C-alpha cells in the first residue's frame, strides 16, 4: 500500500483483493464497506476463500438508466384449459409490462399416448389375457398419469404387475403404429420399433437388481474377492499358453474360498472343482511361460555360467511360490540328501536338479490341496456350513479326531461317509460315537444315518 502511495497509483482495483486477503482475520477487525455488518453476516460473513458475493458489487448493481417498478398484475397460463386468471407481482420496466406466456407454462409436458379405435382393436389388438375393457382402462390411466406405471398399477382395479402393464401398453402401441403406418418404410425409425419392450428381460433385470441391492456386506465382499480372483485367472491364462493335465492342480489359492461359496450358496461341488482346475491351469502355465522367457534371456547373453542359468531357471520355476514354500522346497531337498546347489553342475545334472525342484513344488501343492479337501470333507460332515478348519471348535475337533495330520507326511486315508463312521467307531471306540450326536443343528443327516447303520 505504501508503494502505491509513493508511486501515486490508484488504489481502487486493488482494494478488493486487499479485502479478500484480510478477511481470514478476525471479524471485528474488518468492517465491510458496502453493506451493514448484519446483512453481511447473512451472506456468509467472513468468507475465507472465494466470496460468493462481492461486497462492492452489491451496491453497484441497479442500472441507473431504467425505471423499475413492481406491479400486482393478472396473468393467464396456456398450460391451463380453464382460462383462470390469477395475480402476481410483475417487474415493470419503464412502464412496460412483460409480454409472453406464463414463464412456467412450457414445463407442462405430457406423453402422446396413442389411442386406438374400436375397429382397430378388433383387427389388431385382441389378446387372450386382456379384455377390451381392461385395455381401455389402461390406456385411460396411461394418458391421465403420463405413463407412470407404478401409479397406474395401483389405480387399475385388476391386479397386474408393472411389467405386464408395460408389456400390454407397448405391444398395443407398436401394433397400432405398424397398422397405421402408410408404408413399411416409415416404421423402423420409431423408438417403439427400434427398442421393443422385452417382458422377460425386464423381470429378470429387476430381480437381479433387487438381489444386488439387498446383498449383505458379507456377500458383497465375497463377490468382489471371487471376481478379482476370476479376473486374475483369466489374465494369467491369456498371458500363458494352456496345455496342462487336468488332474494336477498346482495351487489351490481359491480352494477354501470356492469351498465356502459352494457351501454358502448351496451349489454343487463341480463349480468349485472347475474353479480349482482353472486356478491350477493358470500358475503352471505361467511357470512354463517363465521358463521359456528365461531361456530366451539366457540365449541373449551369448555366454553364461551353468550355475547362473540354473539359478535363473529355479527362480522362474518358483516365481509363483511364496518364501515359505521355497524354504520348504529347500528343506525337502536337504531331507532327500540332495545338495541345494549341485556340486558338479553339468548340463544333465542341472536339468535333473531343476526337474526335482519342480516336482517338489508339485508335491507341496498336492499336500496343501489334500489338506483343504479333507477339511472340506469334515466341515460338510459336521454340518458346519461355511466353516473352515480352525474357525470353529467343532470342526476343529472333528479334524483332529478323524485323522492325525502332519503336514509334511502322508496323511491317512479319507473317511468316506457312513463306512468311515463305522470304521472310526471300531478304531476309537464309543467315545467317537458320542461325539456326533452332540453336534447341534445342521447335522440332521448324521443321527439318522447312524441309526440306519446301527441297525
Amino acid at each position: 500500500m505504501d508503494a502505491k502511495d509513493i508511486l501515486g497509483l490508484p488504489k481502487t482495483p486493488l482494494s478488493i483483493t486487499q479485502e479478500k486477503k484480510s478477511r481470514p482475520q478476525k471479524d471485528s477487525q474488518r468492517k465491510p464497506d458496502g453493506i451493514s455488518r448484519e446483512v453481511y453476516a447473512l451472506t456468509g460473513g467472513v468468507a475465507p476463500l472465494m466470496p460468493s458475493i462481492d461486497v462492492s458489487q452489491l451496491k453497484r448493481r441497479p442500472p441507473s438508466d431504467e425505471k423499475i417498478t413492481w406491479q400486482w398484475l393478472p396473468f393467464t397460463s396456456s398450460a391451463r384449459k380453464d382460462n383462470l386468471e390469477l395475480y402476481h407481482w410483475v417487474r415493470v420496466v419503464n412502464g412496460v409490462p412483460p409480454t409472453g406466456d406464463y414463464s412456467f407454462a412450457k414445463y407442462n409436458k405430457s406423453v402422446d399416448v396413442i389411442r386406438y379405435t374400436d375397429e382397430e382393436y378388433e383387427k389388431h389388438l385382441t389378446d387372450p389375457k386382456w379384455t377390451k375393457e381392461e385395455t381401455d382402462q389402461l390406456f385411460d390411466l396411461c394418458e391421465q398419469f403420463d405413463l407412470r406405471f407404478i401409479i397406474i398399477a395401483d389405480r387399475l382395479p385388476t391386479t397386474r404387475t408393472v411389467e405386464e402393464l408395460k408389456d400390454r401398453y407397448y405391444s398395443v402401441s407398436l401394433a397400432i403404429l405398424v397398422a397405421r403406418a402408410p408404408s413399411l418404410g416409415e416404421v423402423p425409425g420409431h423408438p417403439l420399433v427400434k427398442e421393443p419392450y422385452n417382458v422377460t428381460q425386464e423381470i429378470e433385470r429387476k430381480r437381479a437388481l433387487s438381489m444386488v441391492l439387498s446383498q449383505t456386506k458379507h456377500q458383497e465382499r465375497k463377490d468382489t474377492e471371487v471376481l478379482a480372483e476370476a479376473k486374475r485367472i483369466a489374465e494369467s491364462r491369456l498371458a500363458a499358453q494352456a496345455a496342462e493335465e487336468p488332474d494336477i492342480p498346482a495351487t489351490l489359492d481359491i480352494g477354501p474360498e470356492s469351498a465356502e461359496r459352494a457351501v454358502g450358496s448351496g451349489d454343487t461341488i463341480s463349480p468349485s472343482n472347475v474353479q480349482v482346475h482353472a486356478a491350477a491351469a493358470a500358475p503352471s502355465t505361467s511357470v512354463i511361460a517363465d521358463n521359456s522367457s528365461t531361456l530366451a534371456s539366457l540365449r541373449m547373453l551369448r555366454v553364461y555360467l551353468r550355475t547362473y542359468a540354473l539359478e535363473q531357471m529355479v527362480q522362474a520355476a518358483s516365481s509363483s511360490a511364496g518364501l515359505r514354500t521355497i524354504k520348504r522346497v529347500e528343506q525337502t531337498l536337504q531331507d532327500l540328501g540332495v545338495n541345494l546347489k549341485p556340486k558338479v553342475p553339468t548340463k544333465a545334472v542341472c536339468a535333473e536338479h531343476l526337474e526335482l525342484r519342480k516336482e517338489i513344488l508339485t508335491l507341496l501343492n498336492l499336500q496343501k490341496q489334500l489338506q483343504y479337501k479333507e477339511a472340506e470333507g469334515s466341515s460338510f460332515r459336521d454340518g458346519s456350513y461355511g466353516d473352515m478348519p480352525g474357525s470353529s471348535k467343532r470342526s476343529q475337533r472333528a479334524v483332529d479326531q478323524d485323522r492325525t495330520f502332519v503336514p509334511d507326511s502322508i496323511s491317512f486315508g479319507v473317511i468316506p461317509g457312513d463306512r468311515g463312521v463305522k470304521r472310526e467307531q471300531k478304531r476309537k471306540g464309543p467315545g467317537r460315537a458320542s461325539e456326533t450326536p452332540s453336534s447341534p443343528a445342521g447335522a440332521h443327516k448324521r443321527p439318522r444315518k447312524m441309526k440306519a447303520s446301527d441297525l
Partner: protein
Amino acid sequence: MGKPEDGEKKKKIKDVEISVPIVYGNAAFWLGKKASDYQSHKWTVYVRGATNEDLSVVVKQVVFQLHSSFNNPTRVVDSAPFELSESGWGEFEIAITLFFHNDVCEKPLNLYHHLKLYPEDESGPMSTKKPVVMESYEEIVFTEPSESFLARVQNHPAVTLPRLPAGFILPPPVPVEDESKRKRGDTKDHPLSQWFLNFSEADELLQLAAARQQVQAHIAKLKRQISMTGRNNQQFKPL
C-alpha cells in the same frame, strides 16, 4: 566390413551350444617354520579345464583381482596354465575375469572365488606337505557360437560339443602349430595336479534320480488320496 571371409567367420550358428567345463579354485600350502606374520601361506589360484585340458583354445586371458593390500592387485595372465601364485596370511574373495578370443565371445565372464587357506577342521594339525584345496566346478556355455570358433574346437578335448544339426558341414580345422614348440597349456602334469579334486557327475545324477523317484511316488500317492477325498466329499455336498 572387410572381406566377405571375415563375415563368414563371424557367422553365428543357432541352436548349437558349446560348453566348456572348467574348475577354478586354489591350493594353499602352510609355510610352517618359514611362516611369518604376513606370509603364513603360499597359495595358487587357478582356472583349469575340468579334465585338465588346455583352455587356451577358448580363453585368451585371465585377470585375477586380488585384495587391495597386495601390490598391483590386478594380475593378468596371458597364457595357459591360467594361474597365479602368491603368499599371504588372509582369506579374501578373488574376482576372476575370463577374456575369450575374439571369435569366441566379446564379453568377459566373471567368477568369484573365496581364497581358502585354513582347513575345515580347525583343530587338526596344519601340514606343510599337504595343501588346503578349494575347487568349484563350473561350465561355461556359449550360445550361438561363431563358425570359426566351432571349427577350431570341433575336436578339442577341452570343449563339449553337442550333436551338430543334420547336414551341418564345418570348414576343416585350421592346422595347429607344432605342439612341442608351444608351452604346454594343459594341467595334466601340473605340479598341483595330484591335489586336484575329481568331479564326477555320475554320483550327483544318481542322487538326483533317486530323489526324483521318491518324490514322484509320493506325488502319485497324494493324487490318489485327493481324488478319493473328492469323491467322498460329494456324498456330503449341502443340499
